């Protein structure tokens, strides 16, 4: 396997509606920013990967319609569509292409324009025989699993509210983030509208329009174009059995994320992630999920996630800042969200994260989460 690194990232401003841009224009905005950040031109791109959940926009073949926006004409181009993991899996696919030695530079771009379609319809198109009748979207499915997780681990609404506040306060230092709520309080979260017990409005991610792109380069090109590339040290992807009822205590066990994390930690020689990681960008569509992911990712022992957030361990000034960007809780264009996790982790390694930079970050984790339990994990570092 050849070495590969991220040498540039770019994202759009994310918002509830980006009516000012069509889908190809939105994608072009992110791709142009990524090429500029990498210091390369469109001719340098050997292949393109597009991540998008086309059911949400109701427009088939996004790789066709936005391909031009992604500089893909006349080049190898493929699409990844795996729910919430689309973006991280797209980045991992791009990494595979470079690591295989077949391509020197791959552009990965994820996008979603939730405002143009009907996300609930896309989410409802599940198995027609079994659960389409009772489809309740990401919200209902999460709420069910959270009811178990709270009992299993003794997690409280107040602890979840602290996660929701941390995300939005971090987002206030990220000019690209969708939700800008710098003065949000825990009481506001606890007073926000109940959506599905125990999940409240401010516990959930928004639906965003936005795109994000990264440039992955082989070692020789990475060293040529970038003073401090973000080296991809390990990646892992895990899928699960198809139905929510197949997975016992989904959030509590989260076997896929546990397995993916163990795999990348072993490959990168990480024994104590809380101490050895400098920053993490994790895919947390709901506040309670971040707590469950702390345990699955080994940031603490099982049952200790509530204490971790109460002690401020994952705040910007804590031992392991989690989601300095504001995370999915502040910005969620689904097909782009996984790419944003990787791009934000890479920016931290490259020292280009601006006001939300974690000083001296040398090792970063990015994760993806999709459908009922799919998971991706990636370790980035200042050295290969």
């Amino acid at each position, binding site marked *: 396997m050849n070495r590969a690194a991220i040498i540039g990232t770019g994202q759009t401003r994310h918002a509830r509606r980006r009516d000012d841009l069509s889908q190809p224009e939105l994608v072009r905005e992110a791709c142009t920013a990524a090429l500029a950040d990498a210091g390369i031109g469109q001719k340098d791109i050997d292949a393109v990967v597009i991540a998008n959940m086309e059911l949400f926009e109701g427009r088939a073949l996004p790789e066709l319609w936005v391909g031009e926006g992604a500089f893909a004409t006349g080049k190898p181009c493929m699409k990844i569509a795996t729910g919430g993991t689309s973006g991280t899996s797209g980045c991992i696919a791009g990494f595979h292409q470079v690591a295989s030695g077949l391509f020197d530079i791959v552009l990965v771009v994820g996008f979603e324009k939730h405002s143009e379609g009907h996300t609930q319809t896309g989410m409802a198109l599940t198995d027609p025989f079994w659960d389409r009748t009772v489809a*309740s979207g990401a919200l209902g499915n999460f709420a*069910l699993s959270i*009811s178990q997780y709270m009992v299993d681990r003794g997690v409280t609404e107040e602890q979840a509210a602290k996660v929701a506040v941390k995300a939005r306060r971090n987002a206030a230092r990220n000019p690209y983030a969708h939700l800008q709520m710098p003065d949000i309080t825990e009481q506001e979260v606890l007073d926000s509208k109940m959506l599905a017990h125990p999940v409240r409005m401010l516990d959930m991610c928004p639906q965003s329009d936005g795109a994000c792109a990264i440039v992955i380069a082989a070692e020789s090109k990475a060293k040529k174009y970038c003073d401090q590339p973000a080296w991809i040290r390990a990646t892992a992807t895990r899928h699960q059995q198809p139905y929510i009822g*197949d997975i016992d205590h989904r959030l509590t066990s989260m076997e896929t994320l546990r397995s993916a994390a163990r795999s990348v930690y072993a490959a990168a020689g990480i024994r104590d992630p809380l101490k050895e990681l400098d920053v993490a960008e994790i895919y947390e569509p709901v506040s309670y999920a971040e707590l469950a992911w702390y345990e699955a990712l080994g940031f603490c022992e099982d049952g200790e996630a509530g204490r971790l957030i109460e002690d401020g361990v994952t705040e910007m000034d804590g031992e392991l800042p989690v989601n300095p960007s504001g995370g999915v809780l502040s910005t969620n264009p689904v097909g782009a969200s996984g790419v944003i996790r990787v791009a934000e982790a890479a920016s931290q390694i490259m020292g280009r994260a601006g006001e939300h930079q974690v000083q001296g970050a040398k090792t970063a984790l990015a994760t993806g989460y999709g459908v009922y339990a799919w998971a991706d994990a990636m370790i980035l570092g200042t050295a290969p």
Partner: protein
Amino acid sequence: MSETVTVTIEMEQAWRYASGTAMERFSEGLKERRIEAVSCRLCGRAYLPPRPYCGKCNIRMSSWTPVKDEGELVAWTVMQLPMLDGRTGEMREAPYGMGLILLDGADTTLNHYLAESDPAKLAIGQRVRAVWCNERRGAMDDILHFEVIR
């Protein structure tokens, strides 16, 4: 900033799906208020919905296990937002209860509606039973919802 051009599309579209032999037998059973899981001869797990393969052992499954139409509530929520019914295209008005139910005899849980929509009256570990429709067509909504056995 460009103005938004809106393209409105309304359509009625029917889909046909082949059920496969496992789901065919299960659907026929529902008409007679009979629930059956298919179980794996290697790991012994009894699956709902019935399906051709055990994803853990990667073998074809063909043995059937009877499952009761009552069991334990292992997860619950009360939806406070109207949600789309993906089968009819209609919105289901809130509030309504939902649960993951471990039916007696099954090893996987069933996601279904609950008759109870008061969060104060729902708890993990409660016993629940299916309320069947009088007219049954061999689909999951032959069960109207599950009620808590008090």
